[in-house]
């Protein structure tokens, strides 16, 4: 076998073995556990902030299979939705869950994850007054603009901006996909 063919052959074999062992682990060991844990975590939040539902529906994007939002259903109708959303903050994405009732009025904004600077950006968690500002605002009729409709946290401007942008994103999504009964 010529040298150049040997190089290609060896590298290809290594890559094939590597890819197949990883896909085995993902499909048979890790994948189901991760899926289950994500579902469990989402259900915990839904039970806490949208209690009393008969069923929770996980609305998935048909192309990617990713959950776009969660709908809480009681006696056949949707009475509340929870929208996961995120925007880039200072040290990484600020991940939020926006919970609203069926009219689009926000009942809760929960910080799911953040990697902001300790002592500054993490005031988004230690100062809950900030996310409480969003409560009772409406996803359809209100605009979410930092320092005009929402007050920023002193010393955590970038983080406040990110959170506000994330809520605005959720509002846009709500308007185009969920509002007016169009649960597309």
């Amino acid at each position, binding site marked *: 076998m010529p*040298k150049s063919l*040997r*190089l290609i052959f*060896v*590298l290809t074999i*290594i*890559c094939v073995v*590597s890819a197949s*062992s*990883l896909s085995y*682990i*993902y499909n048979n*060991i*890790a994948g189901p*556990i*991760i899926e289950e*844990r994500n579902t469990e975590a989402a259900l915990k939040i839904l039970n806490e902030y949208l209690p009393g539902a008969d069923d929770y529906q996980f609305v998935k994007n048909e192309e990617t299979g990713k959950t776009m939002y969660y709908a809480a259903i009681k006696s056949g109708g949707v009475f509340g939705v929870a929208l996961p959303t995120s925007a880039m903050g200072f040290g990484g994405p600020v991940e939020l869950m926006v919970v609203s009732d069926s009219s689009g009025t926000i009942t809760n904004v929960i910080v799911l*994850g953040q*990697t902001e*600077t*300790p*002592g500054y950006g993490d005031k988004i968690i230690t100062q809950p007054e900030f996310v409480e500002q969003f409560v009772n605002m409406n996803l359809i009729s209100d605009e979410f603009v930092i320092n005009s409709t929402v007050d920023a946290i002193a010393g955590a401007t970038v983080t406040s901006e990110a959170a506000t942008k994330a809520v605005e994103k959720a509002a846009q999504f709500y308007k185009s996909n969920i509002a007016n009964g169009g649960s597309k």
Partner: protein
Amino acid sequence: MRSFWQDIRNGIFTENPVFVMLLGMCPVLGVTTQAVNGIGMGLATTFVLLGSNLVVSLLRKVIPGEVRIPSFIVVIATFVTMVDLLMLSYLPDLHKVLGIFIPLIVVNCLILQRAEALASKNSLGRALGDALGMGIGFTLALTLLGSIREFLGFGTLFSITIIPNYIPFSIMRESTGGFITLGLLLAFFRWYSIRKQRGKQA
């Protein structure tokens, strides 16, 4: 021929990857804000080192010299992805804290250096001994760094409160504190080893 124990001692003391060779500084500074993170990162790196040294040593006669670096990287990346997936399934809390630093083990020069300099030229036994020694040395160094930073930055050790109502020395929680602590520790170990050598000469 060097024995297994010599290889292990070599990794912990003589050629400690952090304090002597200064390899893999990115996770060293990034994750050592708490002692537990240091242990987690150290063990993950040890697993990858063991796996990559094992495979590279077994394949050292099969892999042609021209493609050895891409082959090593693929082998290392495979083990890193395994750690990433398994940690996400079984230790999700630790995975959340270590975050981006887990996939970054791929580019930790410590692992590639051990594959290139040792495992690709030596027998399986030596490669495994070296991986274990380097892994333990790396874990100990990260845990030491993490303990000091956690104690000064939070007043706790392994999440147990040592000083109640501690006013945090918050620079220690950020990478700046990592650099300062690492610098002081390096100076200390240098001073110690020089003093020891002088003692031998006298």
